[in-house]
Structures are given as structure tokens and as C-alpha cells.
């Protein structure tokens, strides 16, 4: 899968789900891409580097999201 195509697919699907979900497991992303985890990882890494996605971590579990979406712990009290 081409990078640009993958990027569009991820952004589109994640934006669509934004009403209910702002953080996604790595598995969700590889399912969207329809790729094996190792292949998906290469693309997801690049999406992070290009700041299309950002990491979220609880300390024990990591997830991915579109930058600026969802409620972040630090921002809660600023609303």
C-alpha cells in the first residue's frame, strides 16, 4: 500500500469514529490498513513522524490518535 493512500485511509476512518473514540489500539490501525502488523508498523511509524498521528500512553498501554483530539489529562482543567 502506498503511504499517501494509507495516510488518507487512516485519517478518514479515525475522523469518522471521532464522535465515539479518540484513541486507537495499534491493532485497530493495522485492521484499517488491512496489513500484517509488521507492515502496518512501518506506515504507522511514518505517520507519527509526520505528526499525522500522535502517541498516547497510560504508562502500561499505548494507543494512537489524531493530534489534538480527545481529552488529555493535562487539558482537563483548562476547559
Amino acid at each position: 500500500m502506498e503511504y499517501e493512500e494509507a495516510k488518507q485511509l487512516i485519517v478518514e476512518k479515525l475522523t469518522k469514529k471521532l464522535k465515539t473514540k479518540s484513541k486507537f489500539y495499534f491493532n485497530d490501525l493495522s485492521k484499517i490498513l488491512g496489513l500484517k502488523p509488521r507492515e502496518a508498523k512501518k506506515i504507522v511509524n511514518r505517520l507519527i513522524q509526520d505528526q499525522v498521528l500522535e502517541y498516547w500512553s497510560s504508562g502500561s498501554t499505548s494507543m494512537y490518535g489524531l493530534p489534538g483530539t480527545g481529552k488529555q489529562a493535562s487539558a482537563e482543567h483548562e476547559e
Partner: protein
Amino acid sequence: MAKHATPLLDQLESGPWPSFVLDDLLGVLELSYKHGRTHWKHGGIVGVFGYGGGVIGRYCDQPEMFPGVAHFHTMRVAQPGGKYYTTEYLKNICDLWEFRGSGVTNMHGSTGDIIFIGTSTPQLEEVFYELTHTFGQDLGGSGSNLRTPSDCIGSSRCEYACYDTQAICYDLTQEYQDELHRPAFPYKFKFKFDGCPNGCVAAIARSDISFVGTWKDDIKIDQEAVAGYVGGEFAPNAGAHSGRDWGAFDIEKEVTGLCPTNCMKYENGKLLINTKECTRCMHCINVMPRALHIGDDRGCSMLVGAKAPILDGAQMSSLLVPFIKVEEPYDEIKEVIENIWDWWMEEGKNRERLGELIKRQGFQKLLEMTNIKPVPQHVQEPRHNPYIFWNEDEVEGGWDRDINEFRKYHQR
């Protein structure tokens, strides 16, 4: 005068080593004691650029009351092999943390990293830059990735080490940098390296893949030294239990009688060991280190699936590879690791540890995915299920048959 009154905690500050140093930190704790619940929250998008782990966001939910700890992020710093440090290095990283963080550290966290406790978001990149550029020091793992691999001191100081734990720990850390820093696993994953079955890093109890040193040939016996122990010339356990008088050393009661497989006996002043039955438990070697020594044909056993009791209780690792040579470039070992990862990344549910996947899909599935043939060492107990389920490829001719050929010999 303290910033916050902390009557419930003042005792902590008495004595030569006051436990807490920050006013606001004490204040939060006092408030937690008063309310009976925590005022910390964790998790978030904080981190250093390009890394998905190494930083754990921590915030206080009373930032106006305790501005000094409104952000109090944790940073994990990868520990060196065997946790050896120079004093200069320790001074340097302490200075850095005092300057850029709270100055509070934890040496070490359960996974083994140096833990820097407490800094604010703008300091993260600064600390990371200094660590990597000035001290040649990387962050450790956190989140759904490979956690910082950890090892015992190995052959650097221990005569029991069956392989160079530090060499392989370093090699795999370098090889799997991407897995360490960019999370794409279902959950955390840990490697630990024990040089011998004494298990000083407790690999078997707390790592998804435990590497435990072992040997294939005979335990080396110095019969003269055995006689020395029997005669009371040498203290058993190298004098470790000399705090009280246990009476004269009794080799039958303290060594041969405690052998878990009854593979040894002491006869006519000679110690005999039946290597075939020995499980390398290390007990006899630990009691008589002058007389007994690990064999020369050394390597490690790979065990898989240990975890802590968060879900479904704690689990110890199960033996997967009974013996494997530990030699650079560790290709055979890496092949096993990567086959396991391919299976777990594909089949593991979110937040499911390898040990749980093995329980869910079966050890047999793991053997299949790693292309390892079943051997007696994989069998824990006789099977409970009397049925054998064959796969199509295990049966001659598969599931299809030629009905006309069959009818030639069998009437309807």
C-alpha cells in the same frame, strides 16, 4: 516554615534520611491521607519526539493548591547491563535530574530502569537531549512495547554464569530498538537474562521470554573438596548461614537428601551424580561451591509467558527451548523471538500478555508457530483429554477420499 501543614506526615521527615523533600509533594500526600483517595492521574500524550515510550505522564488533580507538582512526569532511563555504574556517571545524571526534574529517583524500577520521578512537560526534551548527547544514555521502555531488557551480572563477577548475559542483553537491546521505542505490541513485553538457574533477576517469574543459563554435560566434581566439606574444613554455602550453630555438616541431609530428582548419592566417600536425571536446580552447587561446578557445555533455556497477577493470577514461564547455544550473532535465538512476536502481534488481543495468549490458544499452537518439535520437556503432566484431534495435513490422504475406489471393496 513548611508551605503546607502536614501533621500526618511529619514523622516521615524525622531521622537521618527524610523520606520526602518537596513541599508540594508532601502536601498532595497529606491531602490523599485526609481524603482517603489519590490526587494523581496518569497517562497522556507527553513524550519525547519519535519515542512512544520512556515517559509516563503524571498530573496532580489539585494543580492550584500544589503548583510545584501540577506536572510530575516519570522518565524511565535504560539501565546498563548488570547495573554497573561509575560514580561519575551517577553524579552526572543526579545533577541533571536535580536541575531539570524533582531530584527524586528510584533505583531501580521493577523492570530495572533508573526511574526519574517528577518533571514538567517542557523539561522532557531537555532531559532527553542531555541524556543522549552528553551521557550516551537512552530512555527505557514503557507502554505497549519491548521493555528495557534486564540481566544479572553474569560472567563479569559470577562463576555460575552459563553465558554472557550482558553481551546478549546489549545485543538484543540494540537489535530491537524499534520495538523498544515505538509501541506496536498488544501490551508490554519483557526479556530477562539469568546466567544460571539461581535466577538473580527472577526471569522465570516476570518476563515474557526468560533466558536461564544451563549446561548439558556433567556437574564437575572435586571429590577432595567434597571430603573437605564433609570433614568440616569448608563452611557450607560459603558461610552464608553461619549466623547460628546448625551442628556439623551432614551431606546426606543437606545435599543429597534435598536433591529434587534424587539424582545423587554419597557412597564410600564419593559423591555421584546421575546427570540424566539432574534438573540443574543449583542446590548442591550452592551448598558446596568449592567442590561442584557447572558443566562446560553451556547455553541457556528459553522459557515463555511469565506475568504478574493482574489478570487470572500470576504465571511462571513455561519451557519452550530446553537448550540453545548463546553465541553471537544469536541468530537462532532471534528466530524464536521473532516467530513468537509474529504470532502474538497477529493473534494477541489488546492488553493480552504472551502468557495469556498461550493459555487461550494452547502451548501446542505456540510450538506450531515457532516451528519447534514437541519434546518430553514440554510435557508437564499426562493429558486429561482422551481424544486426539488430527489436522488434515497430519492424516494420509487428508479428508478427501475417492468414493468409487471405496465402493469397489465395500458394499452399500
